């Protein structure tokens, strides 16, 4: 670091009152540059990663509730044998839309949205690397979500399961537009996920605060980085796959038509090459959240920081070697089976390493059992169960019995709800003060936790047994003579307990928004940089970019934060640093709010939705997108004036 210039900056502070006024003016100038215009227009053109991330979180959570309502209706139908609450057509739509919603509209977006909000703050920068792209991503995601749910509410929702195997989803056995809607919903959400992934990778690589070498990065940032790379390598598979399916249906290609040389298993390979990493894309950010919470509430730096990082990276790699374990029942060569069994078993090791490190951290710290910590403890208990059943089904002979049964339904809900939703709730309680400036109620938080924990186990634990007793998944009803009635009824009793828990959560969020205790900058005395900003953070986040000397910057320097000076406050300037050691490299003026990302999202929507009905949708979309992109990059307003002024000089 350039120590010569540091001396010059340090001499600034002379008279406190004068200094304070100067700072105030500086903050005003920064806010002038960074704030989003108010009102509806601001909503359309915003480039603030915080407001976009909050929109993502609120939208994703709304779809969590909608997907949950689907699940509740399914539990109502299955509570009794031979029930007639819903028929097979609606039931098939219910579980397809439930699965697609939870995976594509809730889990992935909410996990990356937490990254979009907190990664820039935790690494000490003012915005993500491509702020306009961020806004585009959100609107593309929203369109995909509305497409799926609009169709479902019109009773033309997809009904072939969240992995839509052809030929069931092909042109012959799924006439109408239901599957096309599913395939294009995938296109929308994957574009959004890819945009977010690039965003996170580049922001983490190039905009870390000076001194935050890769080795000093918080574990949550590591988690988001690993996941961003996984998205880059996994999502193209499902985009390609859903495109094959869409054009098989639209223009008569034969990718999945065995009569003309196609192969239905090609879909399964491509889908699960994405689908298995997808599970870890949802799960790894949760690991980062758990690490952040454990560190703060155990009151000590995480034990085994490096081992944790390596574990997450290892998980990310091995996740791409497991896809075939979803296809054991399709008859594979034996050698392949052995490889995939071994890989599926060994992925338990990095998860084990992390669990042991958290326990070691808690053991040797001075743990405070606040609400975020309760969710973490619930997470470990449930995730260990889900992980153990995961190891069971890695075995081919074991999986051939329980594959496609309620045992699997139980397993993946333990992994996804226990492994991801529990940490997510914990993270929400942990970071809500930063998002809003107010604390959530601890009492309601405890109700929220215990109702969820009990309701979850009552609902999903019996499903293990149901699967072993022969109940396949995705059946809309079952005969009384099968003897599955009691356990199903028990599972259905758990559902309203979960609903009650979520209602308590919503009440807590609603009430605390106005009446919660004021949080201040750092209510938990946490060690990472997001807690060095005000709560909620100012539009520019940091008036001065911090300088980092360790892994727990706010614990390392308690009295005053070392910072950078010299960034311009008359434009949206961020500090670009180098990849490995975060040495300052250059300053970079970012683009401000613009309506063109929204226009591009509209062009994308027109193109993709039109493609459901006609092959001309694609060329029309391309033309519109070209216009929107040109508008996006074309200099306007201040940039135009400055460019032309520069020419005259």
């Amino acid at each position: 670091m350039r120590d010569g210039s540091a001396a010059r900056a340090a001499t600034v502070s002379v008279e406190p009152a004068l200094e304070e006024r100067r700072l105030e003016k500086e903050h005003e100038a920064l806010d002038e540059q960074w704030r989003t215009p108010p009102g509806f227009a601001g909503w359309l053109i915003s480039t603030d990663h915080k407001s976009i991330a909050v929109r993502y979180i609120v939208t994703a959570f709304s779809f969590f509730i909608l997907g949950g309502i689907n699940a509740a209706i399914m539990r109502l139908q299955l509570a009794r044998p031979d029930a007639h609450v819903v028929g097979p057509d609606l039931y098939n739509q219910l579980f397809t839309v439930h699965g697609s919603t939870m995976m594509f509209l809730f889990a992935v977006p909410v996990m990356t949205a937490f990254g979009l909000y907190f990664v820039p703050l935790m690494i000490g920068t003012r915005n993500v690397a491509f702020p306009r792209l961020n806004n585009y991503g959100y609107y593309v995601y929203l369109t995909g979500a509305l497409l799926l749910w609009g169709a479902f509410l019109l009773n033309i929702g997809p009904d072939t399961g969240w992995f839509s195997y052809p030929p069931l989803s092909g042109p012959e056995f799924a006439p109408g537009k239901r599957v096309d809607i599913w395939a294009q919903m995938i296109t929308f959400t994957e574009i959004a996920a890819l945009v977010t992934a690039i965003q996170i990778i580049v922001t983490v690589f190039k905009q870390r605060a000076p001194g935050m070498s890769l080795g000093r990065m918080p574990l949550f940032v590591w988690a988001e980085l690993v996941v961003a790379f996984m998205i880059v390598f996994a999502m193209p598979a499902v985009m390609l796959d859903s495109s094959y399916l869409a054009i098989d249906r639209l223009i008569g290609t034969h990718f999945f038509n065995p009569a003309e040389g196609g192969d239905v298993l090609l879909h399964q390979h491509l889908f699960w090459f994405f689908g298995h990493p997808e599970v870890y894309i949802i799960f790894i950010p949760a690991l980062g959240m758990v690490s952040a919470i454990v560190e703060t509430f155990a009151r000590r730096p995480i034990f085994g920081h490096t081992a944790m990082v390596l574990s997450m990276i290892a998980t990310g790699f091995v996740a791409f070697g497991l896809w075939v374990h979803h296809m054991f029942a399709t008859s594979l060569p034996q050698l392949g089976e052995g490889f995939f069994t071994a890989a599926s078993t060994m992925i338990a090791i990095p998860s084990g390493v992390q669990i042991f490190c958290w326990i070691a951290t808690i053991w040797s710290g001075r743990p405070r059992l606040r609400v975020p910590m309760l969710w973490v403890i619930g997470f470990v208990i449930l995730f260990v169960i889900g992980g153990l059943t995961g190891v069971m089904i890695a075995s081919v002979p074991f999986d051939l019995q329980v594959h496609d049964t309620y045992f699997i339904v139980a397993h993946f809900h333990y992994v996804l709800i226990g492994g991801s939703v529990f940490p997510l709730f914990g993270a929400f309680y942990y970071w809500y003060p930063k998002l809003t400036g107010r604390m959530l109620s601890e009492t309601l938080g405890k109700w929220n936790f215990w109702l969820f924990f009990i309701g979850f186990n009552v609902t999903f634990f019996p499903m293990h047994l149901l699967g072993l007793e022969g109940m396949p998944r995705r059946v809309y009803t079952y005969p009384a003579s099968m003897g599955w009635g009691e356990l199903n009824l028990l599972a259905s009793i758990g559902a309203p307990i979960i609903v009650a828990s979520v209602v308590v959560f919503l009440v807590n969020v609603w009430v605390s928004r106005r009446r919660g205790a004021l949080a201040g900058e750092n209510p938990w005395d946490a060690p990472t940089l997001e807690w060095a900003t005000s709560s909620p953070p100012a539009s520019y986040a940091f008036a001065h970019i911090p300088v980092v000397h360790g892994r727990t910057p706010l614990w390392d320097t308690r009295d005053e934060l070392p910072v950078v000076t010299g960034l311009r406050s008359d434009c949206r300037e961020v500090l670009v640093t180098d990849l490995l050691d975060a040495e300052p490299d250059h300053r970079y003026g970012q683009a401000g709010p613009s309506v063109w990302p929204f226009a591009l999202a509209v062009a994308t929507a027109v193109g993709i939705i039109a493609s459901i009905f006609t092959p001309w949708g694609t060329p029309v979309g391309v033309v519109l997108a070209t216009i929107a992109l040109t508008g996006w990059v074309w200099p306007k307003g201040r940039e135009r004036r400055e460019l032309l002024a520069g020419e005259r000089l």
Partner: protein
Amino acid sequence: MRAWRHGTAFPIALVAVGQHAQSALDPAGPQGDRFIGLWWLSLAISVAVFVLVVIALLVAALRRRHEPVAVEPVVAPEPAGERSLGRVVNAAVAVTVVLLFVWLVASVRTGRAYTSLRAAGSARAPVEVTITGHQWWWEIEYPDTNPSLRVTTANELHVPVGRPVVLKMTSTDVIHSFWAPNLGGKRDLIPGHVTTMWFQADTPGVYRAQCAEFCGYQHAHMALMVVAEPAGRFRAWLAAQRQPAAPPTDSLRARGERVFLGADCTLCHSIAGTPAGGRQGPDLTHVGSRLTLAAGTLPNTRRNLAGWIVDPQSTKPGSLMPQNPLGSEDLQALISYLEGLR
């Protein structure tokens, strides 16, 4: 042997022939047995691991519980403590690796045992059966080099006990999956592919099997019965199935045959020995001998048969079988005819 737990008319009828609950925990063959071994091993390991982890977690979280202060001081880790902590964590990881390795070996050994049935079975003249999946029923064929000895039936798989069976399976529409939990494992039926599955039933009885891969509207009602019986009875059954349908001997059944041949039934169904040769639906040559109707959905009783013929959509909405509004006398004659096809 565990009978169906809920006594309605249906199970009682089937208990008579040794009906088993559809469950992986009630094995009736070498593969089902192997699975049970694997299941208990994994359960034992899992319970032990779970208990140890949860105890460690709870002790860690609760052991220093005391009056909360406003802000707990931060603990600075000391090198000696960290080292001993490191040793414990390393040991835990090592135990994990060992346990996973044990599991892997157990899994591979079980997989081998599954395969050995295939190897041994090939030598012992296995019973070969071809299964074709349809939305939403199973077409079952016993092939023979002599075409007149081939047997085609539906939704009921008869096998001799103690002898390996090899299923050669495919589908003509969407993907289905054959799963008989008591007999072990499942295998997909995939259009454009032929998959094989080996199994053996050691205990005589009736085992329910069900489609496990989501296949559309009536995935829930696509079951079949595996009837495992002593070799002699199996041979007798096969011989009977090879016969064409016996012509009706009384006037009621003769009228029933006329109803059948005169209505739309023949577009989809075959009855060997009559002009009916449709291939869309199940072969009905010996429908009267079967335990169930509509792919394991209803017990094969006179009343159910009538209901099914007149209004299949109320039992199995979305089924490809249309409603057949028949006059009462025609219906009774038809049912008598079909019941007599044994």
